[in-house]
């Protein structure tokens, strides 16, 4: 009996028992579709995280000073700026405060920094200008708004040359930044930027707890990190007093997390496909029992054991492949619905789909072997005798 005929026969048997075939395939459908959907959503979110990490600039180095006894001063920061491989540095003094324009007010992040900040964080100005060294040196009461803050306080009007209140103190708006979106727990749109010296006064803090440094280029990141660490170790005795983190470390940590996630998902998917396979085996065993007489007739007519084996094997393979194909379609649909509903990203990979499909086909064949073997070994006399 040739393969094509067997496949056609398998489809006819499936069509003759639509409900049962569907229920049999359900395990595989659910298994495959959950793999496809979960991986698409997982890869989508890890991609969007990676995007936002990269949007911070791959040459970015973040330094946090956790020792509050020995203060890190502007002089020391200027030394950091001279380290080999460091292009520029910007101190960050941040707090949360109420900003208000007339009766409209909002809680935002207040960041005191220098003119270098814009370049390091890869921000761009939408209107007006960013903080300059003049503002820094003269402790001007100028402020730059993030795009969300500007919209909240001024609506569609331009805020430039208007004034706002921060903690009751009046500041002059000199610029508005373009939207950058949130990343890693920080939203640069929902913020206001002040000159560092002004912020020291406003937030009543004189020392630096955090600063950003930018390396000359990606190849110099490690040089810069080492140089900064060496410099800091001159001030602080313990490495617990400060942390130097570059974006590549962050990326690596993230990718190891997503790697673990992917493995977990694959494991769950594997188990559900296994359960689906057992479902197929169960139904195929029932089917063999039900069709004992058919097997007897076929054998009497001249079917070899191999023909019967192949017939049942093809049937379970067709069932599982059909389930796999439906699962892939359903998984894509589910991920699309998720992406549309949450505005998230769904990333599909052909290799995942191919793997899920082939795995389900393999499950069908592996779990089909036992029932098919059982069918093929039936004695034709016994089989013909059953009613």
């Amino acid at each position, binding site marked *: 009996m040739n393969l094509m005929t067997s496949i056609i026969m398998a489809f006819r048997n499936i069509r003759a028992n639509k409900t049962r075939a569907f229920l049999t395939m359900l395990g595989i459908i659910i298994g495959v579709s959950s793999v496809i959907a979960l991986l698409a959503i997982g890869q989508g979110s890890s991609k969007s995280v990676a995007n936002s990490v990269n949007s911070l600039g791959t040459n970015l180095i973040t330094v946090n000073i956790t020792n509050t006894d020995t203060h890190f001063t502007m002089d020391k920061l200027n030394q950091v700026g001279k380290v080999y491989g460091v292009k520029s540095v910007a101190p960050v003094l941040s707090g949360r405060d109420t900003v208000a324009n007339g009766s409209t007010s909002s809680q935002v992040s207040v960041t005191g920094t220098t003119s270098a900040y814009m370049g390091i964080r890869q921000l761009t100005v939408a209107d007006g200008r960013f903080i300059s060294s003049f503002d820094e040196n003269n402790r001007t009461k100028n402020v730059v708004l993030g795009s969300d803050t500007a919209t909240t306080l001024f609506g569609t009007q331009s805020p430039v040359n208007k004034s706002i209140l921060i903690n009751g103190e009046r500041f002059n708006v000199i610029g508005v930044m373009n939207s950058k979106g949130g990343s890693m727990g920080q939203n640069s749109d929902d913020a206001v930027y002040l000159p560092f010296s002004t912020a020291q006064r406003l937030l009543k803090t004189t020392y630096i707890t955090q600063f950003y440094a930018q390396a000359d280029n990606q190849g110099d990141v490690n040089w810069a990190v080492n140089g900064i660490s060496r410099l800091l170790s001159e001030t602080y005795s313990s490495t617990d007093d400060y942390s130097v983190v570059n974006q590549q470390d962050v990326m690596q940590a993230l990718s190891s997390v997503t790697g673990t996630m992917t493995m977990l998902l694959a494991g769950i998917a594997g188990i559900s496909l296994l359960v689906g396979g057992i479902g197929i085996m169960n139904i195929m065993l029932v089917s063999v029992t039900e069709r004992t007489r058919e097997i007897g007739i*076929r054998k*009497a007519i*001249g*079917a070899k054991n191999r023909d019967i084996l192949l017939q049942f094997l093809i049937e379970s393979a067709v069932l599982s492949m059909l389930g796999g194909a439906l699962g892939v379609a359903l998984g894509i649909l589910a991920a699309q619905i998720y992406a549309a509903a949450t505005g998230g990203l769904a990333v599909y990979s052909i290799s995942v789909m191919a793997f899920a499909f082939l795995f389900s086909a393999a499950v069908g064949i592996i779990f089909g072997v036992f029932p098919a073997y059982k069918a093929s070994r039936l004695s034709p006399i016994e089989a013909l005798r059953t009613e």
Partner: protein
Amino acid sequence: MTEPMISMNQIEKSYQMGENMVHALDHVSLTINDGDFLSIVGPSGSGKSTLMHMMGCLDKPDSGEYVLGGSHIDRLKDRDLAVIRNQKIGFIFQNFNLLGKLTAVENVELPLLYRGIKAKERRARALVCLEQVGLRERAGHLPSQLSGGQQQRVAIARALSGEPQILLADEPTGALDSRTSGEIMDLLTALNEKGRTIILITHDLHVARKARRTVSIRDGRLWEGEHI
């Protein structure tokens, strides 16, 4: 004298039935020539079915020699027996044994399917066989849409489609009314007249007498003629 179609010599077959050993076939010897129309009569439990399974190569003897169309059946493996069944024997059963999910013509095609014949030729040959039993225009019907007599005729067409040397009919009229039985017997007689070897197994002497030769079986032993 040409070689006989079937030559059975001292065939033995026993089964364990609970505590007892049943000698279903007890040193059975039988020779059937090409073109014969033989009926085998016997009550139930006589060893009739076992003899039919043996002749139909569904079972192998414990001892003795069985030569069918030049092949030593007792020496063949299971897979070779399947080939012999496919090429040399056409089965006709009491309850027709058509596959319910296949149409009449597809049922008739089955023996050719297992012989690896291409779809187009299969269909053409199956239709010729349906024509022979007068059911050409019912080719696309499912067995459930046919009467008992029509189903048995489809089964005969199926038995014929592989162009076997022997038709082996096991109570072919057992499930049919007398008028339809008559039609089926006429069909078998006509096939025999065209030179087909037919072996008919029955407990109905009236049916058995349509054959040209009758043997009787009782308690696993065989006699020439009617010994009921």
